[in-house]
């Protein structure tokens, strides 16, 4: 039976497990392990005709925390197992895949809002910014 890494405590394990589960459920995939594999994955997915893309971006590029799992945001006290519970070996995340501040979180890139907004005349009228009218200084036929 595998041993739980000593750096992980039972509570952390549960949080990590839930975070990873949430990540997998949200994205349907996990990040490739190397930058090259990540890039390959992005290209592979981007070139499919599917309207949804999955890309890996740096943590600083994330605009909302809801798309980036963090060790403290995915679990609630009610589902944190007690210290006496024994996680099964199959649910123990290895240190190499545990989210950390330096790993690349996964975000969904979609076309949904693009199409939704740009096919909605009323919404476009309400939100489109009129271009600044520049005084025409040229004289004569160009």
């Amino acid at each position, binding site marked *: 039976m595998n041993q739980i890494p000593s750096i992980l405590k039972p509570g952390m394990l549960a949080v990590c497990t839930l975070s990873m589960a949430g990540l997998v459920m949200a994205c349907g995939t996990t990040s490739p392990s190397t930058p090259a594999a990540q890039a390959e994955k992005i290209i592979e997915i*981007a070139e499919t*005709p*599917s*309207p*949804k*893309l999955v890309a890996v971006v740096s943590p600083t590029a994330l*605009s*909302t925390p809801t*798309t980036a799992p963090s060790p403290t945001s995915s679990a609630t006290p009610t589902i944190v197992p007690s210290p006496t519970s024994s996680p099964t070996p199959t649910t123990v995340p290895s240190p190499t895949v545990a989210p950390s501040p330096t790993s690349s979180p996964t*975000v*969904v*890139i*979609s*076309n*949904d*809002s*693009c*199409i*939704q*907004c*740009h*096919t909605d*005349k009323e919404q*476009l*009228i309400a*939100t*489109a*910014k*009129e*271009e600044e009218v*520049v*005084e*025409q*200084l*040229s*004289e*004569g*036929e*160009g």
Partner: protein
Amino acid sequence: MEGWEKVFVSDPEFPTSVHGKRGCVTCHSGNGAFADKDKAHEGVIREPDSTEACRKCHKNVEDDAHSLHSTLRGYETVLQQRASTETLPKIMEEAFGNHCQNCHTSCGQCHVSRPTNLGGGLTAGHQFKKIPPMNLTCTGCHGSRIDMEYKGKNEGIPADLHWTKGGLPCFECHTADQMHGSEDSEKNHRYDGAPTPACQDCHPTVESGPAEHTPAHLENMACQTCHVAEYKNCYSCHVQKSEDGVPFFKIEPSVMGLKIGYNPEPSDERPWKWVVLRHVPIDPKTFEYYGDDLLPNFAARPTWTYATPHTIQRRAPQAETCNNCHGNSEIFLTKDDLLPYEIEANQGVIVDQANIPAAK
């Protein structure tokens, strides 16, 4: 177009079309996962790079690299001749970008939207038009000369016969291959190489035409010499920037007219001695705002240049009688027609009184 209208994907079939299925972000970047406008548009590319976005499927887009629409090589050619090795970089450094570069067009600026130079805006709800809409793209840019001449919008000047009788849109004569550029050669300007189109492509029997189609006439005169009505001539373009840094130009009022002169660019494909000449909007001080004497070799090219006006007639006024040309110095470009600053530049195209064909 209103701002919203320019970006309104009104074609309901677009999202499920071949291009639509690729997804917006594939060409335009940004991220539609965000409902917030600013976040969704972060990094968005308004005008996708043709070679990147189009070439993945349209392999022949590489031809576009040789298109004058894309390269603007024609501008560079004339500036190289009139400038010097010292002054050309100064022109290209800023003035070219401010005043010439915006005439560049890409795949999308004809096939999806209006050219950016005209303010952009989707022409058909983001449909990809195999044949771009002529009025919004072709004559949108080629307006003051081509559109007005071709459709007879210049007062007193008849429209082009190909428009009035044939109703021919631009693409009937100017094929996609011609407009996209040749794969195996890069033209230095639009009259580089064989005429495209050539009149004989559609009119192959001109040699058995009217009596005036003598061997001497056909050999020595471009078709336009007899078959175009007056056309537009522009003078003295000056470019500069406002105090706010906005580029603008000033061109003197245009003049309608027709002048026959010597062919400034004779070649195997264009061997004629006589052609019609159009005055182009340039003078030695065109770029004066950006530096002194930036066109030191101004006289290296004529200001009256080879022209193919879009005012073609079956029988233009100058061809109604022999002596409308023969012995008529008014219709030939002579020294008297030149402004002081351009006399040297046009020595190769002006006609001395002694060389005007004698009256019949």
